[in-house]
């Protein structure tokens, strides 16, 4: 009981010193809870949406694709309209309506602006049915009637300022089609971002499916009292088992949710990973705080021991304080987490997503996980300092401890750290020289963890040497003040080491990722330079529909245009082994657009009639030589005997393992409406007409804003900016860990200043000015920050280089160290150090000289 009381008193007496630790716990817990709340909320939104939009039972063609897969022919699979009447005959059917729905469309306004979402949500076109009327309300105009009318959802109309009477052009594989907006309908549930347009049934059939008399699915509603499962059974027995795909509302919703859910899970675990890193960094901060509190309280603890407290009681009193800290930090963190989730939703809304806080989902597990994590981590971190407190001898009460004894970095520590680092380096070396990416990545992971732990342990030992070097280069400029800053940074290497290590972790990841990222750009650029002969590359989020293909082919000043289509097929090797795979059908000019080396045969021969090429690995695995014949069963088409004309080298990143054949061969075995639209297209300018051709292509594609044409320079630029964006996102998430680390620097300095009250007073008394004092503390901070940065950047570059060596197996051939980034981060670290010292330095300057030196 007294233990608890002392702990409580201590805790609240020193709440200022605990504040930064509490913030560290708060931030980490908030990030975890925010992630959970955000992803749960997103799932709730989608659950509601899918539950609302799915009919009781859906009948669709057996070959229908999942919601995220592209149907081969570029339009949805369909079933005959007669099935609707058949379904109606089943028991318990209240109504059955044929529905048309396609996600393979692009909708543009009269200015050729894409109406689709920029956040990755699909554009959906369909016919207006009773099922849609359940979840949407027509707020303006009327439902579409006849071939020139279209209805659009209210969110899209709002976003793009669409009014009744505006024209919308719908681009599908069946051609372009312009209609006037005659209705606007709004969702009754939250629609996170899909753009939706409706036509009347015949128009939708013609435009989206290519012919009337067909539907992409049938929405069946149950009579009162008939369960969905029962209805499904009834419909199944009416239609005959196995003829069509039947799904209850639950099953449709689940199928839709699966993809969204997987995506949300990736986001969730990625963000939790970053939260984990922040926690790791926070541990250093907490360890430092408690170590310093225990050190400052040595006399007090000695007194308690002298008057009879047991080791265990002292130990426990520190842990009780840690628990208090954990509880307070976590509770605040859970609250902040909910706020963070709401903030994130706002941010998403600003980026064009439509989210509603009505769906805010806080499961009971969220605060439970947050609290548990926060408390357990805090108590674990405080365990070592608590043990040290227990070891304080009663004699400490008698000793005059002006400043706590300097913690020396021990030999044992150096040894353990070096052994671990050595093991880590060995693992990294093994990873870098691995033959198989799979084995290598295990070594890489092991190496990263071992070197990190090794560096953390050996950090205090390194602190001595590294701080001296940094000081020699930076601090000496500042004369005696710099020298004192150096001495202060060196006086407790364990503390400097732990503070620097916290910063090291975040920066190591930044350095590693920046090396991998720029190596990716460099490797891709290198490969583009080496192997791509085409001047222009045309691609988009959707496959290139025939009318766009024609327009591109007719664009002036082009020497040639290459079509590139990918079709599903089952390949059977002469040895009888079959595999479901894909073939790439392209125009023969592709052989010059992408220079592929062959290990056997000539690539041109692959484009001859009834010929193809295969990759080296596939050839080796199945013992196939040039001239052998494969059996290729085209999905939705015929099965053909195709001769192997060439075997390509697999040692590339673009089109690795692709099997090429001519489009003519594909067309021979696949019906016209099954020919897939182009995945990508290439073009080469006529001699000396590159600029004119590029401008003309851009002009041509104005009417098809879903596609972009880029020349090689722009393509590389785009690649660079995409990887840059990805990196920036990751850096943004790492910022949390770095912020916690910076708080750690602030914390260390602030506690040091308190600890050195008397020293500071002495220096002020003998004539150190406030400015000099503040500068001394700032310089100490800069040195600690630079120490962390140097270790982190070094470690991270090592990891990055290893990862590049390993990924060289996957085509990441070029190692590029992004020196501007690395140096920028290093310099920025110095500024971060300055920033971290702002408040501690200010407070040191304000310290009363007399308080510091008064003895009576």
């Amino acid at each position, binding site marked *: 009981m007294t233990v608890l009381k002392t702990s409580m008193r201590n805790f609240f007496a020193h709440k200022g010193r605990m504040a930064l630790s509490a913030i560290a716990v708060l931030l980490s817990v908030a990030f975890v809870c925010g992630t959970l709340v955000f992803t749960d909320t997103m799932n709730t939104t989608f659950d509601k949406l899918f539950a609302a939009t799915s009919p009781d039972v859906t009948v669709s063609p057996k070959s229908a694709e999942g919601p995220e897969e592209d149907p081969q022919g570029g339009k949805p699979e369909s079933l005959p309209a007669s099935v609707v009447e058949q379904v109606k005959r089943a028991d318990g059917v209240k109504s059955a309506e044929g529905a048309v729905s396609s996600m393979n469309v692009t909708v543009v306004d009269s200015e050729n602006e894409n109406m689709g979402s920029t956040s990755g949500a699909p554009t959906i076109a369909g016919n207006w049915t009773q099922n849609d009327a359940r979840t949407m309300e027509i707020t303006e105009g009327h439902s579409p009637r006849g071939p020139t009318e279209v209805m659009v959802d209210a969110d899209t109309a709002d976003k793009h300022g669409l009014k009744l009477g505006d024209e919308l052009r719908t681009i599908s594989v069946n051609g372009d089609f312009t209609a006037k907006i005659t209705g606007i309908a709004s969702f009754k549930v939250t629609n996170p971002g899909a753009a939706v347009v409706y036509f009347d049934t015949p128009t939708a059939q013609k435009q989206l499916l290519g012919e009337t008399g067909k539907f992409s699915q049938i929405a069946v509603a149950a009579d009162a009292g008939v369960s969905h499962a029962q209805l499904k059974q009834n419909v199944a027995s009416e239609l005959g088992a196995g003829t069509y795909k039947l799904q209850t509302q639950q099953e449709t919703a689940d199928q839709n949710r699966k993809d969204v859910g997987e995506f949300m899970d990736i986001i969730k675990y990625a963000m939790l990973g970053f939260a984990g890193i922040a926690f790791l960094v926070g541990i250093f901060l907490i360890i430092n705080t408690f170590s310093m509190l225990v050190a400052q309280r040595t006399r007090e603890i000695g007194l308690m021991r002298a008057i009879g407290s047991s080791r265990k009681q002292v130990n426990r009193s520190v842990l009780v304080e840690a628990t208090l800290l954990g509880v307070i930090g976590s509770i605040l963190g859970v609250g902040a987490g909910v706020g963070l989730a709401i903030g994130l939703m706002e941010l998403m809304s600003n980026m064009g997503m439509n989210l509603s806080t009505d769906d805010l989902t806080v499961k009971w597990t969220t605060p439970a996980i947050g609290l548990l994590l926060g408390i357990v981590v805090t108590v674990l971190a405080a365990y070592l300092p608590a043990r040290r407190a227990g070891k304080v001898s009663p004699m400490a009460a008698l000793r005059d401890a002006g400043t706590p004894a300097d913690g020396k970095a021990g030999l044992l520590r150096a040894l353990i750290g070096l052994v671990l680092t050595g093991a880590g380096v060995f693992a990294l070396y093994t990873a870098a020289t691995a033959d198989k990416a799979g084995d290598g990545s295990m070594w890489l992971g092991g190496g990263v963890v071992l070197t990190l732990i090794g560096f953390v342990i050996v950090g205090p030992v390194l602190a001595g040497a590294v701080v001296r070097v940094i000081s020699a280069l930076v601090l000496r400029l500042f004369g005696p003040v710099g020298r004192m800053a150096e001495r202060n940074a060196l006086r407790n290497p364990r503390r400097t080491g732990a503070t620097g290590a916290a910063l090291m972790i975040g920066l190591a990841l930044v350095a590693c990722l920046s090396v991998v990222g720029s190596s990716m750009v460099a490797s891709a650029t290198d490969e583009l330079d080496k192997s791509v002969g085409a001047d222009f590359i045309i691609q988009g989020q959707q496959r290139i529909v025939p009318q766009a293909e024609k327009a591109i082919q007719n664009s002036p000043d082009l020497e040639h245009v290459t079509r590139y289509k990918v079709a599903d097929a089952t390949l059977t090797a002469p040895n009888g082994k079959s595999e479901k795979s894909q073939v790439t059908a392209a125009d023969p000019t592709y052989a010059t657009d992408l220079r592929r080396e062959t290990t056997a045969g000539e690539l041109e021969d692959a484009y001859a009639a009834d010929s193809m090429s295969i990759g080296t690995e596939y050839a080796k695995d199945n013992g196939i030589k040039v001239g052998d014949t494969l059996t290729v069963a085209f999905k939705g088409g015929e099965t053909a005997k195709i001769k192997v004309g060439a075997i390509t080298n697999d040692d590339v990143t673009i089109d690795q393992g692709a099997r090429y054949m001519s489009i003519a061969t594909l067309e021979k075995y696949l019906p016209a409406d099954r020919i897939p639209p182009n995945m990508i297209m290439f073009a080469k300018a006529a001699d000396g007409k590159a600029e004119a051709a590029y401008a003309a292509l851009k002009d041509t594609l104005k009417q098809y804003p879903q596609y972009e044409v880029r020349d090689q320079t722009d393509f590389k630029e785009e690649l660079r900016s995409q990887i840059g964006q990805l990196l920036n996102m990751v850096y943004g998430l790492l910022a949390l860990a770095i912020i916690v680390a910076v708080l750690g620097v602030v914390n260390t300095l602030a506690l040091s200043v308190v600890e050195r009250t008397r020293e500071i007073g002495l220096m002020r008394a003998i*004539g*150190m000015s406030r400015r000099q004092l503040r500068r001394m503390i700032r310089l100490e901070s800069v040195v600690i920050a630079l120490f962390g940065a140097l270790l982190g950047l070094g470690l991270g570059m090592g990891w990055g280089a290893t990862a590049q060596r390993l990924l060289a197996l996957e085509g990441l051939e070029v190692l590029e160290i992004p020196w501007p980034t690395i140096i920028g981060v290093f310099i920025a670290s110095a500024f971060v150090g300055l920033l971290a010292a702002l408040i501690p330095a200010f407070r040191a300057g304000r310290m009363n000289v*007399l308080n510091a030196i008064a*003895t009576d």
Partner: protein
Amino acid sequence: MTTAVTTPGPGVTGGRTAVAARARQVVKAYGSGETRVVALDHVDVDIARGQFTAIMGPSGSGKSTLMHCLAGLDTVTSGQIHIDDTEITGLKDKKLTQLRRDRIGFIFQAFNLLPTLNAIENITLPMDIAGRKPDRQWLQRVVETVGLAERLKHRPNQLSGGQQQRVAVARALAARPEIIFGDEPTGNLDSRAGAEVLGFLRRSVDELGQTIVMVTHDPVAASYADRVLYLADGRIVDEMYHPTADQVLDRMKDFDARGRTS
């Protein structure tokens, strides 16, 4: 009652006034209203140049406060303090810091040295901070005087208490300040080490012409001084020239007795 203990006449020592520090009507009060505590009550004092002055008095008499105010470490509520010709009351922190740095030396009871710096670095610290080069010859002489030549590279925690205080004395002397203030500089030392340190202080006055003001409650320490000032309840109540330890002790007993009967 206001007491004035001032040296009459403007003596001249090496172009400077004979008074190294001067306090006039100095009041230092803490708090206000009912809780107001007066630590210094209209004190007038002159500190003679080239002399060793001791300030004595019981706990709470205001002796440390007087020293802090004279040394520019603490501010006064009213009154003026001059160091040589410079009035320090009313100086801004920056000027005051410079003054302490360039013209005043300090020796505290404990914790005189920075643990991160070795002995010689501690000694030259005030000059380093000021960005001045120490006078090599002088430094040599000071170091030899305090007998530290062998231990200049030692850190404070490798030195005994007496040695630490000697380093502090050397630091105070090294910059050739106009005046050195000591706050019970021997309070933490045994009598032998204390005698050593006091001996150095005495010698620095005699041989180097240094001005020293020392707060102490130890009659033996006070006996090293040329002049002893007695403080009680924030006022200077007596003074004594060329004291011996016994005289000082008697006077103290006297005060004590008077304090009890009054």
